[in-house]
């Protein structure tokens, strides 16, 4: 940008300039070091289940029975993987239409009222700590589901409802930004042709902003996927693939929080939990790449 200028002026301030450069470089180096050591440590622990304890990777990914302390020890993590995917996808399925409606309301229908009241409200939802969500979920949603639906109230449905409220702000904020960034001419053209507001939204706004909306949804899913405490409190934690939405189930995170403190490090039961953490981390990376891919598409 201002390269030539800088070159002329830098000389009297070389020392200062050097300090600044080194300092910021150290900061970024620290950040990179952190992420690499994080990946390294989680991976080395998680992989030791396979290399040190000799558990088969395929068995872990496809096995249906989880009994790390049983005879024989079984490490089938499929129920957890299934639980994580189903809760977070269901949560996104609930939150996405809600978030889309809220952002349309804020951008297209009542911008002034929306920006002034609805947006702060939704941002507040993002600020509420996850333990509080879990607390409310356990004392309101679980008893409600127990009374209304067959089953014990806990399960994927309860987890998904709690998560959907938690990820609503993520989805809404990104959708709102995308809608607001749409070129005005596009909408005005549609209105000028006599289209109603809904036709404009449905035929013009939705298709053009779709990649951005998807970005928001994937980010929401990623957050739901990694959420631990709130889900663990309401899902029931049985290590099985449930037969209904209202039957006790488990996620990767709930299995980790439930047993991590109870197992001693270095034992196979503990290493297996680190393998779950590794799966969780790899899934996070996958989500980041999907988001990147979507972002590249939405730029075109």
């Amino acid at each position: 940008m201002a390269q030539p200028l800088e070159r002329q002026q830098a000389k009297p301030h070389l020392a200062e300039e050097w300090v600044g450069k080194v300092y910021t470089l150290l900061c970024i180096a620290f950040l990179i070091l952190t992420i690499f050591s994080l990946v390294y440590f989680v991976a080395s622990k998680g992989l030791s289940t396979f290399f040190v304890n000799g558990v088969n990777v395929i068995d872990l990914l496809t096995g249906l029975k989880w009994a790390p302390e049983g005879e024989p020890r079984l490490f089938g993590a499929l129920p957890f993987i299934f639980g994580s995917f189903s809760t977070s996808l269901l949560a996104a399925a609930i939150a996405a239409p809600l978030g889309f409606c809220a952002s349309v309301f804020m951008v297209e229908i009542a911008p002034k009222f929306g920006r002034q009241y609805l947006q702060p409200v939704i941002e507040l939802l993002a600020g509420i700590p996850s333990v509080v969500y879990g607390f409310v979920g356990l004392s309101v949603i679980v008893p409600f589901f127990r009374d209304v639906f067959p089953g014990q109230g806990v399960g994927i449905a309860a987890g998904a409802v709690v998560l959907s409220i938690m990820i609503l702000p993520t989805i809404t904020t990104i959708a709102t930004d995308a809608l607001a960034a749409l070129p005005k001419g596009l909408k005005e053209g549609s209105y000028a042709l006599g289209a109603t507001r809904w036709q404009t939204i449905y035929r013009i706004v939705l298709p053009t902003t779709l990649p951005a909306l998807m970005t928001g949804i994937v980010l929401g899913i990623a957050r739901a996927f990694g959420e631990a405490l709130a889900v663990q409190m309401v899902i029931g934690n049985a290590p099985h693939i449930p037969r209904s939405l209202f039957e006790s189930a488990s996620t990767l995170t709930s299995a980790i929080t439930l047993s991590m403190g109870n197992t001693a490090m270095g034992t196979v039961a503990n290493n297996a939990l680190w393998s779950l953490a590794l799966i969780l981390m790899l899934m996070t990376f996958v989500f980041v790449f999907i988001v990147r891919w979507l972002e590249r598409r939405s730029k075109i």
Partner: protein
Amino acid sequence: MPAFYNMNCQEKNKELEGELYEMKKTVMMLMVLALTVVLAACGQNNNSGGASPSPESSAPESSAPASESPAAELSGSLLATGSSALLPLVEQASKKFMDIHKGVSIQVQAGGSGTGLTQVSEGQSDIGNSDVFAEEKLDAAKAAELVDHQVAVVGMAAVVNPNVSVDSLTKQQLVDIFTGKVTNWKDLGGEDQKIQIINRPSSSGTRATFETYALGQKSEDLQGSIQEDSSGTVRKLVGETPGAIGYLALSYLDESIKVLKYDGVEATVENVANGTYPVWAYEHMYTKGEPSELAKAFLDFMLTDEIQNNDVVELGYIPANKMEIKRDVNGTITK
């Protein structure tokens, strides 16, 4: 995000210079502060070297009060990590201990039995608190290095939702429930109500105790059963869920749930102590090798009447010295 990205403040720049300078100063001060804390941290870390008694703080012997003869000689610091169930007891005892021995500092941390055993085995903490025998969690070689100190006993009872009419279950009936052979209370003499199991995760020490001494075999992770690690959540769910059954340590029993007899024997402190009620476990405090002088003094203190008859009872445990029977890791009972 707020919409002030594009703000243009060129015109106002001069008036703001003062303010900006202030802000810069604040930023710098924060940086300096951070550095100070980091340095302080490094310095502090070098000083806190486990349980090694520091020589300079040993008080002159003449000033020792007569009542606590060895007291004034003790100094140094101890770190006890592990079981959250044992935490309240160790914490209370450590406060009393520190009141007597001013030069001593004891830190008690919770993180689960497994964490406690790991840390004591690897030398990061001096004492590892555990709900289970070390042999059940650690490899045999590592467990052999640890010395067991049993400081209290905890009894456990099967509990059901208050609306369940059954009062007592036999061992076989419990096995049938927890392995899924019986799924309705009417088969056990109750009303026509589905049994909802509230179990613990397979890594839980409470579950291991219940399986070993109440069921005599492993239970199954049944489809549809609920698993909670924490006693409070188990109590809440058993109290709320119709037809629910779970198990709790005696200290968590209250009126929101109904306590079952085991083979007709009531779960009381007396019955546990005299050996008629079999579902109980020791609370362990492990040290690596023989305890240091300070750790030994504290562990001895845990077994004094002052702790055993007051804090242990108060917190719902059963005093170790009240037990008329002993049991080893294999479940062999001796009088």
